[in-house]
């Protein structure tokens, strides 16, 4: 029943056998032990499981692992540089208190990187619009938007 797939995750190629029904999020968390990607809602509503597939922000709970064969996935673990330097979005969430309980944070940051890449000059209103697929149950949106604003400015400068 198993399918052999090779997926490049955060720059490293992983070859593994998966059941066809395995969701990308389960493959990442349970087979690769990359537990930074969270499972929130099971209904494609919360955005906690957001990762990048070939550069696009997608929901890893709504994608099969087999569909990622031969493709590149980036998770929250792949944001930080090899030398431990935080990605500007991580630094900005840290400095602007962009998280409270932290559960939505990996998905928020992956969505945020997607927003900044697609709309580098997004206004605060556009950032809020683009976050429609990510829920923060602590309702910490003010600081999340401030963090994304700060990271976008930082990334535009560098």
């Amino acid at each position, binding site marked *: *029943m198993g399918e052999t797939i090779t997926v490049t995750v955060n720059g490293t190629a992983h070859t593994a056998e998966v059941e066809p*029904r395995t969701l990308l999020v389960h493959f990442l968390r349970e087979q690769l032990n990359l537990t930074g990607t969270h499972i929130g809602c099971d209904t494609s509503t919360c955005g906690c499981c957001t990762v990048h597939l070939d550069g696009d922000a997608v*929901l890893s709970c709504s994608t099969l692992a*087999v569909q990622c064969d031969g493709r590149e996935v980036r998770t929250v673990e792949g944001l930080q540089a090899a030398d431990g330097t935080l990605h500007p979005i991580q630094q900005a969430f840290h400095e602007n208190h962009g998280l409270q309980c932290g559960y939505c944070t990996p998905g928020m940051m992956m969505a945020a990187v997607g927003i900044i890449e697609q709309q580098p000059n997004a206004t605060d209103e556009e950032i809020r619009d683009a976050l429609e697929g990510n829920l923060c149950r602590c309702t910490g949106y003010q600081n999340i938007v401030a963090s994304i604003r700060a990271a976008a400015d930082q990334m535009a400068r560098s």
Partner: protein
Amino acid sequence: MIPSTLEYTKASSIDEAVAAVAAGAVPLSGGQSLMPMMRLRLAAPHAIVDLSGIPELVGICEDEDEIAVGAMTIHREVAASQLIREHAGLVADAAGGIGSPQVRNRGTIGGSLGHADPHSDMPATLIAAGASVIAKGPNGERRILVEDLITTYLTTTLEPGEIITQVRIPKSDDHSAYAKFHRRAIDWTVVGVGVCIGDDGVRAAATGVADKPVRLTAFEAVLNGGGSLDDAIAKVAEGIEPHAGLDGSAEYKKHLLGVLARKAHAEASSR
């Protein structure tokens, strides 16, 4: 939850996909409707065929009269297409408002039509725009008006083995817009209305008010007969009996129809 056990194949051509679907596999396009249903076990296909490896199903091009949108073209591309914005602005409006950026990065125009959810944004706008789909099956290819495609909840007139390969949108100079109401960001559309205003009259269609997207024929008739917008709005729900649900009563949805028809009409007129 975890989907139930299934066989997976990835088609590399339309013919291969048609053969798999004819043999009983369920086509998987962007997976933004089917995957959640599989996770909740509302759907448990024994086999799925992934359409993402068929290059000719992706992309937007034009001929003299129509825009041809590959069925696997994602909502983000439809929303960003200048060609669609120019000739069928309401379709771009709808595509840009579906789900969230994550959903628009995966969900496809063909998948949205084939899934036939009565609250989808895309089918109503394509009906108002007079669009058709090209369906390919074991017996060849045929063209179906989107208006004739969806019959009721999650049900289409596609024959066994047929898949949607292309959506064809007439090129027009119509001024058009889509207006919808949903309770929270990313939530299902409660009611949505698409309006096209052209030299040959007004066409309008709505989602969320029946078991399928519907033409707003009474609204169209008043405007096309020279009546006022107020009179058209007063008749917009004629012949329509929305289902009451957790998202609102029938009366409330009829009220939304009027509000949104006015909003879409105003936006279309201003373009």
